[in-house]
């Protein structure tokens, strides 16, 4: 197993896509995220790691305002995408979510055909002028989701009939079909077997060329394999953030080191 090998990658410094400043999140009285400030770069895979309940998923869901659907959840502080505050009163969360796609922990295709799954987003956003246009968008999205070859002959078969890994890649295709600028992934491989995981990881690396990808993962190997930047969360705090290779080889904070070496978690 060379999984633990830290890939020596040339890390370009890209421009900042998402900038969070002093973000606080409360679930009722529970202070879930404390003073998190982070700058996430464009065309980079950023991994959020940390033990369960540390707030990494919560923070991820702040970036496309999915937390709005939870009644008791309150968010304070600023999150800027391309310099615009997404929590501004003028921002419509629906419009934001078209720009910030999301892939969930459990593959959740709609109980519709593969084609309809991918076409749904472009349809509701009016991205296709006609049927041929929509066909192109669907094909492109499925190609980018690295699943085109497997499903091109059965586009009208139900999406729920695919295997777990295929379903997750379908969900990724569905997310990229709306042409987002940021792609959020909440433990996208936790329900997948190692082979499907490898395929999805390969895909993530591919997606990096076009998007800013933020991935929450429980697997440190996965963070090491796919990401350029890593953020370590612990008990609602952002403990350490930096180049993935640095975090894994030279952690500054003792908590990071303990987590990586398996002493806390």
């Amino acid at each position, binding site marked *: 197993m060379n999984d633990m090998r830290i890939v020596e990658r040339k890390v370009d410094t890209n421009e900042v896509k998402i900038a969070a400043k002093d973000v606080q999140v409360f679930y009722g009285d529970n202070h879930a995220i404390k003073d998190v400030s982070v700058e996430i770069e464009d065309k980079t895979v950023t991994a959020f790691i940390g033990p369960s309940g540390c707030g990494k998923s919560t923070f991820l869901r702040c970036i*496309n305002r*999915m937390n709005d*659907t939870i*009644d008791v959840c309150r968010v304070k502080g600023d999150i800027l995408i391309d310099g615009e505050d997404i929590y501004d009163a003028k921002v419509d969360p*629906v*419009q934001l*979510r*078209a*720009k910030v*796609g*999301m*892939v*969930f922990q*459990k593959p*959740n*295709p*709609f*109980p519709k055909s593969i084609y309809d799954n991918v076409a*749904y*987003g472009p349809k*509701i*956003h009016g991205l296709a002028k006609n049927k041929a246009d929509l066909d192109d968008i669907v094909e492109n999205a499925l190609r980018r989701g690295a699943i085109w070859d497997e499903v091109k002959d059965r586009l009208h078969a139900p999406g*729920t009939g695919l295997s777990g890994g295929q379903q997750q890649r379908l*969900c990724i295709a*569905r*997310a990229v*079909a*709306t042409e987002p600028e940021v792609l959020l992934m909440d433990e996208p491989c936790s329900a997948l077997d190692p082979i499907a995981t490898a395929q999805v990881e390969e895909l993530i690396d591919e997606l990096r060329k076009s998007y800013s990808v933020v991935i929450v993962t429980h697997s440190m190997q996965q963070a090491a394999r796919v990401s350029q930047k890593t953020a370590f969360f612990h008990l609602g705090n952002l403990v350490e953030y930096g180049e993935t290779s640095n975090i894994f080889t030279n952690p500054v904070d003792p908590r990071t080191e303990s987590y990586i070496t398996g002493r806390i978690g």
Partner: protein
Amino acid sequence: MTDASMTPTDAPKKKSSLMAQDARTRKRNAAETRFRMYGMAAIAVGLLFLVFLFTSILRSGLPAFTQTVVDIEFTLTQEQFDTAESKMLKTGEYQKIFVNALSEQLDARGLDVAFDAKAIQRIVGKPGGTIRSFFLENPDRIGTPVSFELAASSRVDGYFNGRMTRDTLVDSRFLMATDLDLVDALEEAGIIGGAFNWNFITGTDSGVDNPGGAGLGASVIGSFFMMLVVLFLSLPIGVAASIYLEEFAPKNRWTDLIEVNISNLAAVPSIVFGILGLAVFIQFAGFPQSAPLVGGLVLTLMTLPTIIISTRASLAAVPPSIRDAALGVGASKMQSVFHHVLPLAMPGILTGTIIGLAQALGETAPLLLIGMVGFVAREYPETFVGGFTDANSAMPAQIYTWASRADPGFYEKAWGGIIILLLFLITMNAIAVVLRRRFERRW
């Protein structure tokens, strides 16, 4: 890892064989067997009641679907017609012609029974009027053989259905023991016999003294219009309320209160809705009494909680991941509900609605108070709007009315009405099952 360091106890372990059950296992197995027996016994008792219910309904109700008729064919000559029309008591004259024809036919078949015109009257009533009006309307049929099917009186009907025997017959002005001899002779001659009683299904209610002519048709129409009102009010209102409460409403004390009260509403006795309907729709709003519209409104109030509860349950059963998926690709809340959640909840909603409707269809108590029970539905509504606003009865109300009438013939009709009502209910439940099968999608 403290478990691994635990040392095994030194006490010698008793050797046990897998081939022999120990006492504890035997006890547990016995308990399980006993529990299964209880379950099977419970199901058997349930089935027994069901069989008992159905046999008693069918036994008592099926005779309502047959009607004893006197089937007689005779020719009226032009001469007879002219003579009868010239008399003062025209129908009486036709009655005589009819009696003569009957006795001729009995003689022709070599059956010798003595009878008088009164006996015929007790058996088939006075069909003179029917015969006269037929020939007045169809003068071209004079001189040709015409066959008449005349309903026998309810007592004769009862004799044929076994509701009454020679032993139980008490001589009265309705039927004498000697009449039964005539009836037997007529049966032998093939003149009197049972026929399927279409009038029971298509006819309207009759007066209290004529159970033979009573039909459920008008009240079926009444029920149909009530169900239209219930369906078109309670489905949209119920589904809209549930979607709002389940998907949009903030969870706070007010929505909790509303929720509790909707559940309470489902348990309110139906007669309460009846008196509410009387007070609000008839006395306050001035809607017509006994109208299916008012019945429908009252039953809507009663059905709403059922629909809301079942709709909310089926909405809540849609996995949240579907909502996340829709929101994640930038669908609005409403798009996510209408494009994804609602289609998945549809089978449950439809089932709930149909079960609510079936419940409303069989409901009698509220109709009691708005005047649908006791109303004698003698006519079909003439127009579509009239179907809602004209006074009418409804199936359960009609059954209740019949059951409370004195003539035992009506008792039989009440059972027959129950059979028709049950057929409707079974059909509706079957539709619910089919719809659920069709719309069911796995996720």
